[in-house]
């Protein structure tokens, strides 16, 4: 009965969001406080209903209730509990349910913490949220209902694709969705402002924390997906410019731009129209990402979600929302009041530069992702736009942007002093140049680009800290006062520094791996020794082992440095017996930030010897560590309560608590 009640709750949520799509927005138009209040009640109700529906599905998974088609197709009674639960969103239907649940969660958060928003803005925002919710609930009910029953119930389920039975994949989709869906709030605020034809003073202040929260989740989600692909697929790469990866990377790029332009809007009331447009674009890219992954347009690891009828439905949602919001923007943008003026060389100017580069980069990725699809659709010709395209277009766009990053926080608002900022960056400039020279010397001038890249990384690392050091003013006031001042600095300053520092860490990681990794593909017989990255690796032979639902051939290796044994490594070829599905398990040994990565190829015909790929990846983990820095920077900035309260003072403490809870 719980399953059917969950199904009914899902339908009831659709009915309630239909009401919520219309009534509060009408109330806002007519100035009817009661009708506007319906939005509050409904958002909470819808969230509870969808929470119940999601729990009901989870219960069905936990109890292996194969009378539910979705459970039968994606679960198995012998699966470990963790994967039974992660199986709920490890498939198309369940993941869409998670998608709307998160959407409803964000709506409920706006309803509960948004008491201080102007009522019409809040009512409009909740109605726009309900439009999105209604569209996706209808999508679920009509094309991907997770509650479809199967009768009579089969005794055993079909199990989840073994490659998806992984802890990384249990966390990756929820994080990514929190990011994607979080941008819906910015979108709803933007559309609400366009409907009103007025941007309230509190607008940017409300949009920025939501965008920041979504951005943090998306950052972590992408990073985790990248690490999963790195260790699970056994290809040794960390980013493949795969369309599915790009689908999540585009909202991240434009979301980063939005984050920065929202700062300008919050602090200086400038760039209003542009920020609204960015908010619309960012969520549109999230929808596009959902479409690309869910429609079956792409074939990739995520191919579990392919179905043309679903694709058409999502395409319709996509057209209505993107087309509708952009049309609304075209009609109403001129009625919006544009904000303050500023000099080209100023903090605002720097942020505009950031926005220009980031949106151009987004467009580049968009072209690289969609062009092959369009070409194939129109002419049937298959082309592959891979790494070379992105290296030629994306990378050159990033270099000037990264060079400009340390300048931004040092420039004053409205009119800045570029010479002064450069002066304060002397240390960073010096360190970067020194790095380039040392790197050139060490590589005997063979790796010019990599040396310059390393210099860029160091420039970011040091440059991002300059602002903090300067503002603490150690040189003049001494260490103890300096630290006291450092403590007194607003948290957003730390957030900025941390996030920019993280960017530097990632850049260093990327440069090191791209330029200095070594790859050996070789045939090894037991006892053979090969060198990689200053280590010697001895192949000790293959052994067989049985897992719970697979058998594996394990290659055993010993790692040595200058003759001393450091330890052993394993890399395996797994065969999931029932499905006869082979997978590879890469052997990874981490030493500080660098990793040794072993992947087995085929055995040679006469046995004993096997093909082995050995990578030495210097500083590879920095790529992901950097993203963690970025996310922490985001959290710190989110925890900064300054100016977050656009509200009557009496209610300040409650909202401050709410902001703290979000951080």
């Amino acid at each position: 009965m719980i399953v059917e009640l969950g199904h009914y709750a899902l339908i009831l949520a659709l009915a309630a969001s239909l009401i919520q799509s219309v009534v509060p927005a009408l109330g806002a138009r007519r100035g009817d406080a009661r009708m506007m209040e319906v939005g509050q009640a409904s958002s909470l109700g819808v969230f509870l209903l969808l929470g119940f529906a999601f729990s009901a599905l989870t219960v069905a998974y936990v109890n292996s209730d194969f009378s539910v088609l979705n459970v039968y197709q994606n679960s198995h009674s012998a699966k470990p509990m963790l994967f039974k639960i992660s199986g709920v969103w490890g498939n198309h239907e369940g993941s869409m349910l998670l998608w709307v649940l998160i959407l409803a969660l964000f709506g409920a958060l706006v309803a509960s913490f948004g008491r201080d928003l102007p009522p019409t803005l809040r009512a409009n925002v909740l109605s726009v949220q309900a439009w999105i919710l209604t569209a996706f609930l209808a999508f679920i009910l009509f094309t991907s209902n997770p509650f479809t029953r199967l009768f009579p119930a089969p005794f055993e389920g079909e199990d989840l694709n073994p490659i998806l039975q992984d802890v990384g994949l249990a966390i990756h989709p929820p994080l990514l969705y929190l990011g994607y869906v979080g941008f819906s709030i910015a979108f709803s605020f933007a559309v609400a402002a366009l409907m009103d034809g007025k941007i309230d003073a509190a607008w940017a202040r409300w949009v920025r924390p939501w965008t920041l929260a979504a951005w943090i989740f998306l950052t972590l989600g992408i990073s985790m997906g990248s690490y999963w692909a790195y260790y699970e697929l056994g290809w040794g790469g960390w980013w493949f410019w795969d369309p599915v990866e790009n689908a999540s990377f585009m909202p991240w790029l434009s979301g980063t731009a939005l984050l920065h332009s929202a700062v300008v809007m919050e602090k200086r009331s400038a760039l209003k129209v542009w920020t609204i447009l960015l908010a619309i674009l960012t969520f549109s890219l999230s929808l596009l990402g959902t479409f690309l992954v869910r429609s079956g347009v792409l074939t990739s690891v995520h191919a579990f979600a392919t179905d043309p009828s679903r694709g058409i439905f999502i395409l319709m949602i996509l057209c209505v929302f993107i087309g509708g919001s952009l049309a609304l923007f075209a009609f109403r943008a001129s009625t919006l009041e544009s904000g303050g003026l500023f000099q080209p060389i100023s903090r605002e100017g720097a942020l505009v530069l950031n926005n220009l580069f980031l949106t151009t980069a987004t467009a580049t990725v968009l072209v690289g992702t969609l062009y092959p699809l369009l070409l194939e659709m129109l002419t049937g010709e298959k082309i592959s736009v891979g790494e070379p395209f992105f290296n030629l277009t994306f990378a050159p766009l990033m270099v000037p942007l990264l060079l400009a990053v340390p300048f931004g926080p040092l420039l004053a608002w409205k009119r800045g002093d570029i010479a002064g900022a450069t002066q304060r960056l002397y240390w960073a400039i010096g360190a970067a140049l020194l790095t380039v020279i040392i790197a050139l010397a060490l590589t005997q001038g063979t790796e010019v680009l990599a040396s310059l890249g390393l210099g860029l990384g160091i420039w970011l690392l040091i440059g991002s800290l300059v602002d903090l050091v300067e503002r603490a003013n150690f040189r003049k006031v001494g260490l103890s006062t300096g630290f006291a001042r450092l403590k007194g600095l607003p948290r957003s300053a730390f957030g900025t520094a941390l996030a920019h520092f993280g960017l530097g860490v990632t850049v260093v990681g990327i440069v090191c791996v791209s330029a200095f990794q070594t790859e050996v593909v070789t045939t090894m017989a037991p006892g053979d020794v090969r060198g990689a990255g200053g280590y010697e690796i001895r192949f000790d032979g293959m052994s067989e082992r049985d897992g719970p639902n697979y058998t594996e051939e394990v290659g055993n290796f010993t790692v040595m440095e200058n003759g001393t044994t450091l330890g052993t490594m394993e890399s395996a070829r797994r065969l999931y017996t029932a499905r006869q599905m082979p997978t590879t398990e890469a052997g990874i040994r981490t030493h500080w930030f660098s990793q040794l990565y072993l992947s087995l190829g085929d055995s040679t015909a006469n046995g004993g010897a096997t093909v082995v790929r050995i990578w030495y990846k210097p500083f590879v983990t920095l790529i992901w560590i950097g993203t963690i820095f970025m996310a922490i920077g985001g959290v710190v900035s989110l925890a900064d309560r300054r100016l977050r309260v656009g509200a009557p003072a009496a209610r300040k403490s409650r909202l401050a608590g709410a902001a703290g809870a979000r951080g």
Partner: protein
Amino acid sequence: MIFWFIVAGMTLGVVLLLVHPFFSSRIGSAEARAAHDVEVYRAQLEELEADVERGTLSEAEAGSARAEIGRRLLKANAAAGGRGDDEFAAPVGRKSILAGIAVVVLVPAISLAAYRHFGAQGLPDLPLSARAQPAPSGGVGEDGGIGMLIAGAEERLRAEPEDGEGWAVVAPIYLRMGRTEDAIQAFRNANRLLGPNPVRDSGLGEALTQSAGGEVTEEARGLFERALQARPDYLPARFFVALDLSQEGENADAAAAWEALIEKSQPDAPWMPIAQSALADARQKAGLPALAEGTQPGEGAQAQTQAQAETEAPAPAQAAAGGSPVARPEAQATAGEPGPGPGPEEIAAASQMNAGERVAMIEGMVSRLAERLDTDPNDAQGWLRLIRSYSVLGEDEKAQGALDRALGVFSKDDTARQEISNLGRSLGLEAREGGTPQ
């Protein structure tokens, strides 16, 4: 019943939640939005002063910022004071009453209608723990029986994937349950571990054929031939070889193969009807004279194709679920002229059908037979075939019904009656007194 109480409760709860703002007395007039802006700018000014105190902002910078915020504050102040039309009135207007009524009517109407369409009303949960016990009654138990055996075997095979005998046992069951891909895998595993065997080769070939939508693939043909080399009298393999010849259009060879098959088969073998009409078809196409007892393709075929089209749609789902197929009255209604067997078009169609569609076609044939027996009940062979067909299709209830009726048709001393009740007994059906004329 309790389910509908909870549903009603949930609906009522949501409706009350949505309409409560219309009755609440707490909702006062909302603040004008310009007043909101004023608050925001005031807060900004306070924040500015705090920054200056902390020393993060120089006095000069603060001065210009203060001036700018001040300008905005003045503007917002003027707007707040000057216009009263932004104030929202609290009294319940006619329009909001309408909105409230819309909520009360629409929410239950939409959700109940949608649930009737999408939901399986009141279907209980069937968690594994509940299904592991012998089910008290109904279809779940029947399926659970085989299902449980399969599940047990699968469990063992997970622990010992190299157990060839285990694979050999589950493979044909998978094939019958319509889990074609699993069947292929299991047959392959069994052959890999135990070495080939004609029955398994033929089973694998059949599974491959099903998986290819009824097309006998190269690999499947090879397997059937290997099976026949080891055991030339293995008839299922012969059937598929003949089918392949028909599909390839090698009609003379096909006719010979069908003829040989028919000769060696028991007259009641399940493939006989198909074999006979395929033989006729092959002879016709090969330009050989029609056999004396040949089929009459013409008039029956068209009606049959139509009936088939009607039956096709729901069939695959049932076949895939391994459940018992249900006879569809439309099929009987449209099949105007009862034909004795499938016509050439049907055979050609059958060879391109998947398992589910083929079941549908067979069902169509069975229901035509049933219809014919309605008008001409004095056909003992017909009744025997009908009862056996129902039994093979797993429709025990219908088999029982046919048995009852057949027993009613023939008098007690008739040998036909004896034959029929013998068949009933061998199929595990009971001779009920109701149908027996004493």
